[in-house]
């Protein structure tokens, strides 16, 4: 902390809920966190006025809560929950945010030929009990539930109606919702005059706006399951997302993971952690899950045609695959 007069910090009283005022000309950092969407969102913002930054951050958090109210499949009153309950019967009118997210998700489903699929929810639910120690579902159960899955059964009626062509279809936006939330939070921060900030959605998706004072970009260390290579990237007005299958059990045999391959109906078997850098959270979030499911060979083909996208696959034994048409990923250590 760079207080020109450090004693100020001790004398300021404790009644502000956020941060106290700094009397230097250099922008100060305000860091706040909230538990939303089942994870800890953090926003770090630089501004001359900590009060101004705090107010803008509060508004950004409120926007994330609003997104959660629409996209959550945990909240029974969310727009998504209503859609899941009624779109089998009739075309349901949904908020424009939800329509946009589902439409974008289906575009990634088409690009990945169904590997990324937000209609995988029934399979995810089927495997949840096994994750907490119960028996794995039988092949027969898996086959039955697979019949509920398939993005082609989602019907869009512009501008804001959606219906399902399957009586048991359920959508889960867990693989894309946080990406959209950080995009929306960034828009709110910009509208509030905050230009240099970093929004972190539980570590799985982050969006960097501008850069810290005196820096060209935000330095972010990426997930490294090998603990050997320390991949890093400098982000400026970009987002990074990481996907990784559930870590294997220390005291048992293979444990089922939480990421399900809609093609096989089973948890994807992969050791890789995948990080993707793209211009928006929506894109990085959906691409990271997609690339985890596709693996390096097919994933490379998918994103080679995309501008300003970088990706890295890292295995626990430090095997690395990269594709970089966006920011350069560098290594702090050599394996």
């Amino acid at each position, binding site marked *: 902390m760079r207080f020109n007069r450090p004693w100020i910090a001790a004398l300021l*009283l404790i009644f502000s809920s956020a941060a106290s005022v700094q009397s230097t000309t250099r922008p100060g950092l305000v860091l706040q966190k909230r538990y939303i969407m089942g994870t800890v969102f953090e926003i770090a913002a630089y501004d001359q006025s900590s009060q101004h930054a705090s107010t803008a951050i509060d508004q950004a958090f409120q926007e994330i809560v609003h997104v959660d109210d629409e996209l959550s499949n945990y909240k029974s009153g969310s727009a998504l929950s209503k859609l899941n309950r009624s779109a089998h019967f009739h075309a349901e009118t949904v908020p424009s945010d939800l329509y946009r997210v589902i439409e974008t998700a289906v575009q990634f489903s088409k690009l990945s030929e169904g590997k990324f699929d937000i209609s995988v929810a029934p399979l995810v639910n089927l495997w949840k009990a096994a994750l907490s120690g119960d028996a794995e579902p039988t092949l027969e159960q898996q086959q039955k539930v697979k019949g509920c899955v398939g993005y082609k059964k989602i019907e869009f009626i512009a501008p804001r109606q959606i219906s399902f062509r399957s009586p048991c279809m359920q959508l889960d936006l867990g693989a894309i919702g946080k990406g959209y939330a950080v995009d929306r939070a960034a828009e709110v921060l910009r509208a509030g005059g905050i230009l240099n900030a970093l929004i972190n959605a539980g570590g799985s998706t982050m969006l960097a706006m501008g850069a810290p004072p005196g820096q060209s970009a935000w330095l972010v260390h990426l997930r490294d399951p090998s603990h050997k290579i320390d991949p890093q990237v400098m982000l400026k007005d970009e987002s990074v997302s990481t996907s990784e299958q559930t870590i294997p059990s220390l005291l048992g045999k293979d444990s089922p993971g939480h990421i399900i391959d809609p093609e096989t109906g089973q948890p994807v078997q992969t050791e890789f952690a995948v990080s993707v850098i793209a211009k928006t959270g929506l894109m990085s979030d959906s691409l990271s899950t997609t690339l985890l499911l596709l693996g390096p060979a097919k994933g490379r083909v998918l994103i080679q045609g995309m501008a300003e996208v970088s990706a890295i696959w890292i295995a626990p034994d430090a095997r690395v695959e990269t594709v970089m048409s966006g920011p350069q990923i560098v290594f702090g250590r050599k394996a």
Partner: protein
Amino acid sequence: MIIHHWRITRRRISATAVLGVFVLVSTCAWSSIFIHWTSPALPPARELGFSDLVLSYDAPSPLMQAARKQGYRVYVEMSPQQATALATKAESEGWAGIILNARQSERAQALNAFASLRSAHPKLRFFVLDPDGKQPEMRGSLVIKRDAVLEVSSPTAQPWIDSNLALVRVEQGADNGQVPMYSFSWNSPTAGQLARTNTAADYSLAVAEAGAFHADLILELDAGLQKALSQRDRQAWTLWKQVRSYAEFYSHPAQEGLQAAADVAVVVDDLDPSDEAMNLMARHNIPFEVSSATNLQSEDMEGVDVVVVFAKPDKKLAFQLEHLASQGKTVVVVDAHGSYPWQSQGAVQLNEHAVSYAVGSGKVLELSEPVSDPETFAQDIRRLIGNRNALLSLWNGLTTIAVPYRQNHGGLKVLELINYAQDPVRVQVKVKGSFAAIRYESPENGCCKSFAPAQHDGFTEFVIPDLAIAGRVLLENQPETGSGKGHP
């Protein structure tokens, strides 16, 4: 109004509040908040609402005298060596007691001093303090380094909680005859970060955590707050009244004779609360108790399903562990290479580092290396307990720690909950046992709301719609008809 250590009824508390009578009473074995004071001036004890004040051993003499005149019981914090030299002076100067500040490395010495000082100075109260507590908080994954460059430490990790539950369990495992006592320092801003001042919610969370865990806390107050309180600043007192309401809530036991309930017993050879495996078990709401490897009492483990051993078993302990496994428990022995009696049974290789041995109706699992990933280890322990045995499960409780209490080895009676996120969350709870009524009280809203329980296969489920910082669930077999039990 005094806030702690009293055994009077809630009705009496209510009457006291209504009359505005400020009473200072003596302490008992429950949970207490001691206020650490450093400023030269201080408000009267009856206004602050706390009567136990902790001063440094080198605090100016006028402050010590003023504190006593203002109605405080004055405790002085010092090292075990200083205590031996100053105990006689403490008696002559009217101190209420001495707090022995002892880090883990000085623990044995402190406990020896504690025992001898207690017998030599029966008029003084002595406490052994663990000063290595953590500021309770919900943590994110951003780490600020190198003056305003932000890093992410673990992109796929779940939210972290910094709690003192593992520390309290370790202190309880040491069984030194006192309620666990700890203190912590507030986190300092890191590079580039603007100073953040402690809020009422921060202090309230700290007070609630100690109360929920049945521990004593020495609470540090920000220097600015001390000064503002002593100057009768209105905003400061508004803040302090909120903090005081949390202390009032925990000033009386929900029921007498409650014991912490556990699914897991952790056996250790050195009692180190920094062990991350225990911290992660706490965060995953796996109720556990801690025992010393040299003092394991097998008969105390009737209620547990899993025994985790972070110690190299000697012959006696190995025999005890095999016996526990033969009774149907799962024993997990971590990084303890050697020959043990259970290895005569058929081994099943689970993975590269884990082997399972069937023993009677239970099993022993050997992990051949230290716990490399405490998060995964905690989830493994949860799976080993099994859904059929788990005392407690939470949904949407990633920022919540729930501590179950039972009465005299019986079924569950009370659940204390702490929400480290501080913003209200809707938490779904499942507890073992069939309960006809669920009552809920909280420092924020007092007593009592009733929640509709749903009973399934020997478990009771209910939803707490708005857990703010803290709450207490009373699990009742029959609905109560009277209204006198409530919190004021």
